[in-house]
């Protein structure tokens, strides 16, 4: 073996192999060279995605009622939902808001692992009625989503939302990794002293990007920190990340949510109003059907701020003038309207009442 002579062919192939490998190493090193040392670091996604104004395409006459209340018996939830939505537009009803081939995102409050009768989550029958209305209007796809505090699967199951969605053919989108995207809500860092909270923040964007219309369906609840969780607070369930940091500036964040989300329609579920121990509740005695109204109710509105003010006064029996986030939301939305956005955001429901924009139906 030792005296075997190296052939020319073998010399060339072996030599070339080493040269090629050395060359590849040099080229690879050059290509991957990072003189600043930061090319390989994680970068925040530079997404320019913005949330749509889901109200922009609704041709809503200015003279139509903006808050529509339907009261009735607890067993007639579907009729109440129909009457409440019908009150906003007697001629077209839901078709004013949802048109054929729309993808509708319905955002109930599924925040906790609680059965429906405790009022901590949206009543599944209210959701069922809303899904049916959307289907009747010709919606191509109906998505239900929320980012609960507790285990999403358990919350959707226990609240009865999953069962209703499956029975009615709506699609549940669970808040899983990869469905969130960091969006820019302010180009600069939010100034907490000026009532701001959101700058860049991850939200449950995947279903929102697909949707053409967004309907919020929120239960009316007492809240330990911001006094009440209603239509505006419901959008909190779209936030991802360590959103519990915002509790230090709770009124900033709730009013920023009013700015962030321009829904097609909001529907307040006052079939069971949680009067105390909110937002979790836990006892049957914590909830009263219709709250201070004394009768179960469903309220539909195109103005989430005014709707919240109305609900705060009539359902929880508290003074909306003292609810800081309503005032902040009103101011923020006025800025938007001045910038040409199609929005409603009236802090005082009394103004609407004077203009005859609040209607009440009894079922």
């Amino acid at each position, binding site marked *: 073996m030792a005296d075997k002579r190296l052939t020319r062919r073998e010399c060339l192939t072996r030599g070339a192999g080493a040269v090629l490998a050395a060359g590849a190493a040099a080229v690879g090193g050059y290509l991957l060279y990072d003189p600043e040392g930061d090319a390989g670091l994680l970068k925040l996604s530079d997404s320019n995605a913005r949330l749509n104004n889901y109200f922009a395409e609704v041709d809503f006459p200015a003279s139509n009622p903006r808050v529509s209340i339907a009261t009735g018996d607890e067993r007639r939830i579907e009729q109440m939902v129909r009457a409440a939505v019908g009150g906003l537009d007697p001629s077209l009803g839901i078709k004013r808001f949802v048109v054929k081939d729309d993808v509708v995102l319905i955002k109930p409050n599924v925040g*906790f*692992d*609680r*059965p429906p009768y405790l009022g901590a989550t949206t009543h599944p029958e209210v959701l069922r009625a809303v899904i049916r209305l959307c289907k009747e209007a010709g919606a191509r796809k109906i998505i239900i989503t929320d980012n609960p*505090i*507790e*285990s999403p*699967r*358990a919350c959707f*199951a*226990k609240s009865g939302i999953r069962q209703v969605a499956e029975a009615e053919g709506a699609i549940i989108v*669970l808040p*899983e*990794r*990869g469905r969130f995207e960091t969006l820019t809500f302010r180009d600069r860092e939010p100034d907490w002293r000026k009532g701001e909270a959101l700058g860049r923040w991850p939200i449950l964007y995947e279903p929102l990007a697909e949707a053409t219309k967004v309907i919020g369906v929120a239960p009316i609840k007492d*809240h*330990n*920190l911001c006094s009440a969780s209603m239509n505006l607070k419901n959008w909190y369930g779209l936030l991802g990340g*360590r959103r*519990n*940091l915002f*509790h*230090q*500036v*709770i009124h900033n964040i709730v009013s920023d949510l009013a700015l962030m989300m321009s829904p097609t329609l909001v529907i307040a579920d006052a079939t069971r109003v949680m009067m105390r*121990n909110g*937002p*979790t*509740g*836990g*006892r049957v005695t*914590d909830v009263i059907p219709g709250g201070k109204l004394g009768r179960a109710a469903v309220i539909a509105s195109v103005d989430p701020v005014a709707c919240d003010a109305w609900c705060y006064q009539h359902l929880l029996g508290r003074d909306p003038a003292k609810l800081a986030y309503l005032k902040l939301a009103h101011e923020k939305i006025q800025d938007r309207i001045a910038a040409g956005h199609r929005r409603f955001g009236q802090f005082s429901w009394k103004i609407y009442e004077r203009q005859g924009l609040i209607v009440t139906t009894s079922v």
Partner: protein
Amino acid sequence: MSFTHSEKERPRAAHFRDSWRNWTRITTVRVIVQTVMFGLFLAFVFLTTFANLDRLPGLRCWVSKMLEIDPLVAVAAAITTHTIYKGLLWSLIILIPTLFLGRFFCNWICPYGTLHQFVGWLFRGAGTEDGARQDSCTSGTFRPPRGADATAGGAPAVTELLQRHPNRYRRYQHVKYYILVAMLVAAAFGTLQIGLLDPICLFYRSMTGVVVPALNMPAPSLLGDYRFHQGAWLIGFLLFGLVAMNLVYPRFFCRVLCPLGALLGLLSRFAWWRIERDPNKCNNCGRCLLHCEAACDPHARLRKAECFVCFNCIEDCPEGALRFALFPAKEHEVTGPDAARRKFIFAGVTGLLFYPFARSSGRVTRDFSSKLIRPPGAVEELEFLERCIKCDQCIRVCPTNAIQPDWFESGLEGLWSPVLNFRMGHCQLHCTACGQVCPTGAIQRISVEEKLGLGEYAERGPIKLGTAHIDMGRCLPHGKNIPCVVCEEVCPTSPKAIYGERVIRTARDGRQIELTIPKVDIDRCIGCGICERECPVVGDRRAIYVTAEGETRSRDYPERDRNRSVRPCK
């Protein structure tokens, strides 16, 4: 069984007959049974999630079935608790046939054994020195391994070849009996440690701790949510290490370490049937060793306690000298493990010493860890250590990932037993899934009513896992004059156990500010830990945290000096 060229040219009918014979061979049937059992095991593992059990309540009695048929779990738990808990009676369907047929479980049922056999088969093929050596054993071209002195010219004697074969019986195989004896003696004192090495517990734990989370990394939501488990690296390392051993020592775990195999080996002493060699037909070719799974010496006196009843030797014997015989001659076998009695005594002493050594640390009595929060329905700690087999089914099923494999919080004994970590998740109010899947009753099968103290349990009150405490220096309103109280918001009891105290404080700049300061009502707190999980003050310790103090399960054991600093709820 490779087909040679000439076989392909045979008439169609003969070919068909041969392939039919292949399918009806007992080893083929065995492989099918093993595959089905392995598939069932995987199915049970993947189905053990809160969502599945919620949707299909009938699954509850199935997902832990592999653990329930495990005779070692039943026997050891019967030693510690003097009872057979619910489904553990199923172990008789393995135990009784073993008394007649031998250790068939190891090569027919055991999914962990199947894993080892499969990996060994996959990586121990031709092309390696080992594989070549195995093949050459019978063809006369055998080369002795390095280090052995090769006799110049002429093949070594067959007996010498057989001495060196990797499937020969080796003395290390005693070790598993010592492990078993040590563990059972320890069990007699009330510390159940079989779960550390019981193959079913070990495999379930490995699946929960590392395999399923690893599969979830690239495909979230396919198998449930993304999971984290403290100390998972060791669980993974153990799985990998034991499986990798097959490359150097075939079925190392099954032959050398497995305490369940040891128990079944002892039980097979009375078996009516076993592999029997006819010395008149046998020509000492040694082919029977080629695929012997158990290293039980089918070419000589059969080691009855070792044999897995895999039937490979019968299949491989060209002379038809081997058969599965009823009541064969006693002198052709080595009946029991031929381990020295003194070593058994030594193993017993090891188990006996383990108890005082482990308990002397005081970890389960005086110096209990306040972090040792057990799942809802868990029995008192001393009983818990008698029952928990560390299979980690509860960890797999927990919907919030709160239940974690313990990392020495309860001392040496509790390694990998379930403990709640509220930085990972919280105990969901209307969930009792962990108790539903627990095969040994370490976590009792409680209802939601019992957990929450509703209905007939109203008088006794809810099950309390521990008590929340506020770190006043870290808490934003308490220590920093910043409004927060997320803890109050998420507190699930009614009335809330965390309540706000309205105070007026003077800020640094002299302004009067109104703050809500959170306080814990220890009579209401159930220790669910959602406050700890949601607290915005992250870091090594949240501003509110739960400790085991006041837990319901040790309420009736004040003499054990555990958890008395906070009065238990009524």
